[in-house]
């Protein structure tokens, strides 16, 4: 027995040391994660010439509509140079899934754009067709608005209608009089030559199928807003897609309804997915390695690490020599420091907008001066603002129920100084809920710019009854002007801005206590005890995302969070003005830009006068890329950095 324990000990010790080592070496053998590589499903290279012939007319039409991105690059005429041109992008997030209907990550759209590009682009706050020759409108007959007569007794779950923004599924409370409601029908015609990477042509059936998936109860789509307001998306013929809304749904963004509630605007292949139960889709191989129809197809996907794309021979513009590079690799990096370090070392060629912030601006500017990199700073759709609680939800008296006090805040806070000092002057001050380059914006001089004017602020406050007390802080009827300011914790920019505002308001006699709180758990918490939703604040700074559609609806009376609407609603200042509601509601009931523009301008003017919230500035999107890279043009209103990934190119020294 005396020998036995020793051997046992030696064996165990060796095991403890060796097992991890062996396991580790085993890992070394097969590089990285065992994620399968795509087998390009029988890419029929011989079919390509046939497709080319029919593509000519379609290609011309695309070029005409794609001007914004094409500017930056040379015309894509010649064949790409032989060799292996690879371009590497770096972001500091990774997609949660490539199955777009289930994704909740903004990285998914960025990545999917390379192999299943959105069928529309959103450049310059407009929609442009990608998979279609043109977008439907009343003028070209693609959109039809009919008035239908509905008998309230016929309204049911299967036949809902939309009245005053509410989906109604029962006519019980609507009386017996027939209702006259507008009903929209829109049609899109698919461009010739679009095919999936396995050679199967894309048809209208794919769109109808994507709609069926979208409305399946087992697919975890984020919302069913448009689905609830849609009768169906159907294939009229092989190339024609038709969407029909429920009676009463006048949708100003009808042009995107070829797919609904899908922020990537991409389509899924029926022939690949149809045999699978919708509930099983998310975790299937073909959902993690989807079939392409865009310029690239997936060669390798290492979740959380990187995705490698190679040229898709079936791409409908392949005959034009597109895409310009042979492969694109998107790397998902751990943090901004890595994005910077890898840009510097040349491990990545482009640092995308999800990853670079103004914290890196000084370094990036140095590189730009040295000529190694180019940098783009684009004031984009995310806008910071300060909500002022006009009526608090917890019954406390408000400081901002008087419009003069809110205007005084606008005069007393030097927003230009904030932009200059905190944001390096790289963005612009806003005076309405939309940026100045939006499709509707008041003419110069029509908006009050509220240039910094502390005397004007003091005068307005005095008019409203606020006069300096013994310690210099304003008082009114024995109440001190001492307010609670909230914003999210851990955001350096916001903390700096808050401190500047605190100092500036101190100068006009307002005492402000800063509260930096957790975002989702406190500031944006739902329900009565949330800071914003429960209206338990005096001032709160956070951001909204503007889009192609205006944000005017944020300030409607119906959006005020109250006990009646279960503290939902997006109007935490509790601004409620009949004049504003009357104008703004019309904006959302009209289809054509020319009708909507004057009304929207009117609602911006009312907003600017009443200042329910003080707009600060547009956040900046930053992209940096090494000299020699072309085709990068960050656009303020797009949801992806590269609306035209096929235009990306690189020339190395």
């Amino acid at each position, binding site marked *: 027995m005396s020998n036995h*324990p*020793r051997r*046992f*000990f030696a064996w*165990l*010790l060796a095991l*403890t*040391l060796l097992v*991890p*080592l062996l396991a*580790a*070496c085993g*890992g*070394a053998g097969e*590089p*990285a994660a065992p*994620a399968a590589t795509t087998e390009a499903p029988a890419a029929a290279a011989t079919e390509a010439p046939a497709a080319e012939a029919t593509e000519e007319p379609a290609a011309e039409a695309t070029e005409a509509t794609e001007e914004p991105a094409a500017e930056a690059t040379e015309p894509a005429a010649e064949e790409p140079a032989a060799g292996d041109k690879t371009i*590497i992008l770096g972001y500091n997030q990774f997609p949660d899934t490539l*199955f777009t209907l*289930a*994704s*909740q990550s903004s990285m998914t759209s960025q990545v999917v754009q390379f192999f299943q590009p959105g069928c529309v682009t959103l450049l310059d706050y407009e929609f442009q067709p990608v998979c279609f020759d043109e977008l439907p409108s009343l003028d070209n007959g693609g959109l039809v608005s009919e008035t239908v007569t509905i008998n309230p007794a016929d309204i049911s779950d299967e036949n809902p209608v939309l009245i005053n923004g509410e989906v109604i599924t029962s006519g019980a409370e609507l009386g017996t009089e027939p209702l006259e409601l507008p009903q929209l029908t829109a049609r899109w015609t698919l461009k010739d030559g679009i095919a999936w990477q396995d050679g199967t042509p894309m048809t209208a059936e794919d769109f109808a199928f994507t709609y069926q998936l979208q409305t399946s109860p087992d697919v*975890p789509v*984020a*919302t*069913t*807003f448009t689905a609830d307001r849609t009768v169906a998306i159907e294939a009229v013929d092989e190339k024609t897609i038709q969407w029909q809304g429920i009676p009463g749904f006048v949708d100003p*963004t009808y042009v995107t309804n070829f797919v609904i509630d899908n922020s990537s605007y991409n389509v899924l292949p029926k022939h690949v997915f149809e045999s699978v139960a919708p509930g099983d889709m*998310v*975790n299937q191989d073909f*959902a*993690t390695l989807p079939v392409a129809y865009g310029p690239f197809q997936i060669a390798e996907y290492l*979740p*959380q*690490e990187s995705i490698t794309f190679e040229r898709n021979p079936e791409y409908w513009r392949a005959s034009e020599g597109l895409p310009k590079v042979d492969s694109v690799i998107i790397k*998902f*990096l*751990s*943090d901004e*420091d*890595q994005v910077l*370090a*890898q840009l*510097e*070392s*040349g*491990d990545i060629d482009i640092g995308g907008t999800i990853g670079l912030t103004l914290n890196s601006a000084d370094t990036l500017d140095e590189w730009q001066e040295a000529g190694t990199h180019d940098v783009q700073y684009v004031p984009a759709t995310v806008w910071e603002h300060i909500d002022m609680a006009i009526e608090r939800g917890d019954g406390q008296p408000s400081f901002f129920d008087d419009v003069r006090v809110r205007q005084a805040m606008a005069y007393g806070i030097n927003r230009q100084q904030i932009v200059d000092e905190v944001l390096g002057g790289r963005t612009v001050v806003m005076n309405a809920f939309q940026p100045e380059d939006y499709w509707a914006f008041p003419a110069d001089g029509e908006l009050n710019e509220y240039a910094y004017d502390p005397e004007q602020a003091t005068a307005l406050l005095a008019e409203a009854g606020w006069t300096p007390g013994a310690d210099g802080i304003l008082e009114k009827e024995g109440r001190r002007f001492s307010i609670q300011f909230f914003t999210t914790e851990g955001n350096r920019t916001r903390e700096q801005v808050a401190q500047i505002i605190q100092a500036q308001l101190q100068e006009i006699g307002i005492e402000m206590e800063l509260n930096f709180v957790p*975002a*989702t*758990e406190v500031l*944006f*918490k739902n329900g009565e005890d949330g800071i914003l939703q429960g209206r338990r604040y005096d001032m709160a700074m956070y951001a909204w*995302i503007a*889009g192609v*559609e205006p*944000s005017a*609806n*944020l300030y409607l009376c119906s959006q005020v969070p109250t006990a009646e609407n*279960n503290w939902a609603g*997006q109007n935490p200042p509790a601004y409620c003005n009949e004049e504003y509601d009357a104008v703004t509601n019309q904006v959302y009931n009209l289809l054509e830009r020319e009708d909507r523009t004057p009304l929207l301008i009117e609602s911006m003017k009312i907003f600017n006068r009443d200042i329910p919230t003080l707009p600060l500035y547009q956040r900046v999107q930053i992209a940096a890329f090494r000299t020699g890279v072309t085709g990068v043009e960050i656009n303020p209103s797009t949801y992806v950095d590269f609306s035209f990934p096929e235009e990306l190119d690189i020339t190395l020294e």
Partner: protein
Amino acid sequence: MTTFLIRRLGQMFTVLFVSSIVIYGILLAVPGGPLDQLLQVSDPRQRPSQADIERHKRLLGLDKPVYLQYVTWVAGDDWMGAVPFWAQYEGDRKGLIRGDWGESWKVQRGKDVLAVIGQNLPDTLLLMGISTVLSLAIAVPLGIYSAVRQYSVLDYAVTAFSFFGISMPVFWLGLMMISVSLAFREQGWFYLPPGDITAPRDYKLPGLGTVDAKSTFDRILHLIMPVTVLTLLNLAQWSRFMRASMLEVLRQDFIRTARAKGVRERVVVLKHALRNALIPLITIISLTLPGLFAGAILTETVFNYKALGFTYITALGQKDWPLVMAFLVIQAMLIVIANLLADLLYATVDPRIRLV
């Protein structure tokens, strides 16, 4: 021995059961949840309605009462149809006792959490294994040497180095290495890639020529910096450990006796002293076992080495509870196993310790 093992196994299961409840309870107490992010949307078209939220909860299994959520996690819900009052909660989950650990909510939506962990495991074991073995291989001789030659120049040097290593924040050391490496690059000297597990594209290094992407050599180049950081950290602590333990043994009577008998110094140190000083070392080695699996959160983040440490911290941040829970349960298992292993080893190294 057998009774000991049986009793210990029983204890292990109890510990694991209790820790699974604690893990579940703690995550339940975290404010917010996986649907928070969905609600931060201003566009009414993309903001989920109450009905949407109910649908998401049902798909995630969060519509059940809390105690049933725990039961589902552990034992599944495919049998619930047979139980009165629970029939409505029947689903297709099998529960972790039958190998179904659930699907990731966020990090890799819809993917089996064990698959997510498995996919990152080889890289984790490689990084942690190499740095652990390296640390031990250097720390043990270094500790022995500085104990035997106490107050020598080398002992002082090792001590000073240890304090440096212990007090150095990992992320700072990592960032410094990266910037020094990039400064070398600027000079046109040899440098190391600042991050990643392997490079996706061939690259040139001064003095080495072109390095093939994803080759073994590429992998080694990418491992140098993170392994160095981790090794320095462990090395500093473990050599102190070894030194203290050796010093204590070397002062004991039987060592003096051995020396007095005329046993060679080498044998005294390596046979008589070392074996008796091994107990703390065993503790260290056993407790590295869960560490091998856990990865190194900061080092992985600084060097963009996406292994389990990074996955875990991301899952925590995104409130991907199934992934976090799987991670913690596996971690708890490994700790329990490592402890048992340590006890067995103690008994073999030191005959005075009996397993009863």
